[in-house]
């Protein structure tokens, strides 16, 4: 038996070793020159790199480049929904958009909405993640409760929010009325805006929380202990030791939250306010859907998605340039 085992091991190991060495050589990875960093590593054979990239590129092709091309081609035409008649109108769709008071309002609100949701989510999740260590009893329950919203479909959670805060029948709305607070998201635009911001943040906290808790666990205990010996209290330790060390994760979450608020909150808006009242909560991505898929104004909808795409790309680039410099990946 031991003999057989040994042969089996060598049998697997013999061809395996050169293979892994091969990858190492392809990547030109060299342990001794780690100072040059990951960015310096490259493939010597371009076809191999292309092959590894192909699956991802194909996904991008079908789910990003082809749709983008379609959107671009539709943005400059007026088209009847059935695709029968097409009229080239140049920049008319864009001119109409920027000339429309509703669109400008929608853009301004989207900006505020995105900023408040991405930063708000991150701050609250940081507090929860920070507090995790101090929850002694029922830590499992604490984590589960925070993670729960992630398991609920956006539309379902949207309907729940709409119901809870419905001024006529919602228990939470009635509680607010009992406290003497005016509350009517159907008639007070600000209330509707607060409602979708809260609903959007609530949905995204758990995502942030998972990443933050995991990364905080990665902070070396020795550093925290050293700080404790130096007399730093928990909050001080968090800001001076833990937070700088998890900055890469925080940065990643900023980008993800931004994309979430800009694109994925559409289901919440649809269920909670339908963009109303009077367009108060009509964020850009919901307007694209509403104009394109409900009202079938494809030209304008395509123009809007092109604008949205440009905004998203430029903001992400901006975030990388402005913030990434301050993030230290070297742990």
């Amino acid at each position: 038996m031991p003999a057989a085992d040994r042969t089996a091991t060598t049998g697997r190991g013999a061809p395996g070793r050169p293979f892994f060495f091969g990858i190492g050589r392809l990547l030109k990875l060299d342990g001794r020159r780690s100072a040059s960093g990951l960015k310096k590593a490259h493939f010597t054979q371009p076809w191999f790199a292309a092959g590894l990239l192909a699956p991802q590129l194909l996904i991008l092709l079908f789910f990003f480049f082809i749709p983008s091309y379609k959107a671009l081609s539709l943005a400059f035409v007026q088209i009847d929904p059935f695709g029968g008649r097409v009229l080239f109108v140049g920049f008319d769709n864009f001119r109409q958009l920027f000339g429309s008071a509703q669109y400008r309002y929608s853009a301004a609100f989207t900006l505020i909405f995105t900023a408040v949701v991405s930063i708000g989510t991150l701050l609250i999740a940081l507090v929860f993640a920070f507090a995790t260590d101090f929850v002694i009893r029922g830590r499992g329950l604490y984590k589960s409760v925070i993670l729960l919203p992630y398991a609920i479909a956006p539309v379902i959670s949207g309907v729940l929010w709409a119901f809870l805060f419905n001024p006529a029948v919602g228990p939470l709305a009635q509680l607010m009325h009992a406290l003497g607070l005016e509350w009517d998201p159907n008639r007070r635009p600000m209330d509707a805006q607060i409602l979708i911001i809260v609903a959007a943040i609530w949905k995204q906290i758990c995502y942030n929380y998972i990443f933050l808790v995991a990364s905080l666990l990665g902070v070396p205990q020795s550093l925290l202990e050293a700080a404790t010996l130096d007399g730093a209290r928990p909050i001080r330790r968090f800001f001076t030791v833990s937070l700088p060390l998890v900055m890469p994760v925080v940065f990643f979450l900023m980008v993800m939250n931004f994309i979430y608020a800009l694109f994925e909150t559409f289901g919440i808006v649809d269920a909670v306010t339908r963009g109303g009242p009077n367009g108060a909560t009509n964020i850009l991505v919901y307007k694209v859907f509403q104009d394109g898929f409900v009202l079938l104004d494809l030209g304008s909808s395509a123009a809007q998605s092109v604008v949205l795409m440009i905004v998203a790309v430029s903001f992400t680039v901006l975030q990388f340039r402005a913030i990434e410099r301050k993030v230290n990946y070297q742990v």
Partner: protein
Amino acid sequence: MSLLKRWRKPGRSTARKVAGVLALTVAMLPLAGGELAAETIKAEWWHAMRGRLTPIVEEMIANFNAGQDKYEIVGVLKGNYEETAAAMVAAYRVNEHPTLVQTSERAFLTMYNSGAIVPVPELMAREGYDIDWDNFIAPVAGFYLVDGKPAAMPFNSSTPIFWYNADNFEAAGFPDGPAETWQEVEKQLYAIKEQGISECPMSLPNDFVWSLIENYSAIHDQEFGTKANGFGGLDTEFTFNQSPVIVAQLERLQKWMNDGVLHIAGQGLNPEALFISGDCSTITASTAMHAAVESGAQFDWGATFMPHEEGMEPMNSTIGGGALWVLQNKSEEEYEAIAAFLNFVASPETQAWWSEQTGYVPITNAAYDMMKGEGYFEAHPTREIAIVQLNRGTPSDNSRGFRFGNHNQIFAITNEEIQGVWTGQSTPQQALDNSAARGNEVLRQFERLNAGG
């Protein structure tokens, strides 16, 4: 090829060959049998009949399928009218569309000009069915006929009527129910509120633009748009914002809302459900709500004509609901099946059955007469309100209906602008001015795109 070669190999006995062929034949039998059984021709119909109406429409399809064995209609519920239209358009562009689709009356001109339809009379004539297109009741004919023939098959036709909780009215001292005029109704609704009988005297329907603005305009003979509300050409323009009567109506609704008489249900709640549950005393809603009210309301309910202004002679209200359109690029068999189905739908028996089940108005005189003959309306007086209201007076250019391109887009715009009145961001006049201005842009866009056709 390889299979044949192996069979020719020497050494294989004839018996084995025979056995092989036999085995193959036996294996193929169920397939052949299946093909025989599947000789019924299937055709899809996408509809938008939700809630209480879904089982009724399914029963109608089942009746048709059971009544003959050549065709099978497959009904698919695609959501509300907008969702159904969006799904159909998306499917049409990739040639995955159904043969038959139901769209709202609002989509008439868009569908008519789409170039994607087969006119129903053309299809029926080609398939050898003889339908009497003159038998439609006048308001249906007035809305759907173009040069004496409908492009689509009128199907579920409705109009808004005024629903009320008779118990609440009785308690407030109005045993006869709502009065005829808006002025009197206002006093009654305020009385219901002040006497504490109901917190919500009136629920604002989601399609209030249809019942409280558009139909209001028709009933009071106000011009909604030039060119006979669009019937006279694509170069129509909205003028409803210039009517002091319509502006006053919106001012009245605003006042009611500020005084807590008129309530918005809000997302997650259905305004009609608030009436049926007894929470709200009145609502203006389609006559098709009969199906839901009859099965759901636990109180003494009633329905009556839409109120009108004091000192003004009320005209007819307009047709709402939907029609059935036949789409292009389907197989000859599918057209055959759909023609048979449409013939079934157009029969007086089906029409009368459908009307009795749902509350939609009977759309042909034959069906209407049949129901009258049965004494149906004596037993169900609220069922006749809609049809009498639709037929009231001689239709004028202002009351015949609305034929605007992309009318659903304009509906959404008006809805949004009027929400500005509820929030206090705009006055009724401003909201209507904005609606007309934005609506005109949509009309011009439609005109430009459809100029050639």
